[in-house]
């Protein structure tokens, strides 16, 4: 078995090496990949969309239909993770541990006992619980706002610098994951509940597809943002850059929601309240 696999791998690798000999050399400006379609994008992006970042204009305008379905793929992955892992029927454990914070006493509550409700005086001790750590919590508290501001900058400044909805959304989602790691998964879920997260996933896709349908309402093609010129009171070319910005915001919201959703489900094994 092992030898067969190795032979297969080496023969496939050898074939690929043989094929790579005829490929254009690295950095060749006249290579087939760079000589047919991409010069059009580079030379016409300013007059078509007035966006200097060619990557953004291709992503959200020239290939906007493709990107819409990429967003839907991400949305579907988030939903699939819920369907695979999420358990809504929580089995009541034999005993729960609660710590009374002012006195430092740990209570063990048997099955059927009265469980303290959400308050600042009690914290639940289980596999989700993280010991209090001053350095980690202070660092997270200081760093998270800057990460979020940077994420908004990356989303909003994607027209003029490297960035856009996908990158900014991932950074924004990462800030919430850092919050959940540094503080507590349960606290993070209380701050940013599962319902809001799922709603954000759907909202992002809705903004993207809704922009496309809005263009159809203004009697143009799906995702042809120049039709929105009368809505923004600008010329059609600037309207395209505004349309790209709206779409990028939608992508950012969807990606952020999916990142948080994946972390919640994977970190707790689907039992958001109980932990792994």
């Amino acid at each position: 078995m092992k030898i067969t696999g190795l032979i297969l791998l080496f023969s496939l690798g050898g074939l690929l090496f043989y094929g790579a000999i005829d490929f254009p050399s690295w950095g060749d400006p006249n290579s087939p990949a760079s000589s047919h379609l991409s010069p059009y994008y580079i030379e016409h992006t300013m007059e078509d969309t007035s966006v200097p970042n060619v990557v953004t204009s291709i992503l959200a305008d020239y290939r906007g239909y493709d990107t819409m379905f990429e967003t839907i793929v991400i949305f579907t992955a988030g939903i699939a993770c819920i369907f695979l892992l999420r358990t809504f029927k929580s089995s009541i454990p034999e005993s729960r541990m609660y710590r009374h914070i002012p006195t430092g006493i740990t209570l063990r509550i048997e099955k059927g006992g009265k469980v303290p409700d959400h308050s600042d005086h009690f914290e639940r001790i289980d596999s989700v619980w993280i010991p209090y750590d001053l350095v980690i919590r202070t660092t997270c508290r200081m760093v998270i706002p800057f990460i979020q501001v940077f994420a908004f900058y990356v989303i909003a400044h994607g027209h003029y610098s490297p960035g856009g909805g996908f990158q900014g959304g991932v950074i924004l989602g990462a800030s919430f994951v850092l919050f959940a790691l540094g503080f507590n998964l349960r606290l993070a879920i209380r701050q940013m509940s599962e319902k809001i997260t799922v709603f954000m996933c759907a909202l992002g896709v809705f903004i993207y597809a809704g922009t496309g349908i809005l263009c159809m309402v203004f009697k143009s093609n799906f995702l042809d943002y120049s039709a929105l010129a009368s809505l923004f009171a600008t010329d059609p070319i600037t309207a395209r850059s505004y349309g790209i910005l709206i779409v990028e915001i939608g992508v950012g919201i969807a990606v952020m929601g999916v990142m948080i959703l994946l972390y919640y489900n994977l970190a707790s094994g689907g039992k958001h309240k109980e932990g792994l």
Partner: protein
Amino acid sequence: MHEVLPFIISKINYFIYIILMMLGMYGIFMKKNYMKKIIGLNILQTSIILFFISIGAKNNATLPILELQNDHDANVAIQAVNYINPLPHVLMLTAIVVAVATLGVALAMVIKIYKDYKTIEEDKILFQTAEDTIENE
């Protein structure tokens, strides 16, 4: 020898991507642990991303953000030779994020398998399922 070395250097990106791709495929084919298989899958994805990014490179070109004299001066002639190919970057930008999302689904599947079989070793799971079918018969 003095001809072979420049040839290898001019094609180095393809050779690196093939080596990485074979490493990833080795992980997918040979390893019995599902986590290791997922890591192999990710290495394979990374090799494809590297391949796409490397075919967009051009010598003496800068990144695909147009340099304008001022904000309203769109009439400056823009030469495609001066900017690297943006198309592979766009394709891989979405592919990276989709890879992260599908990685989440793969990890969810592994957690689900672990809950059902208490192991993520492929041969042990096959052994367990074989035992179950024998018992059912």
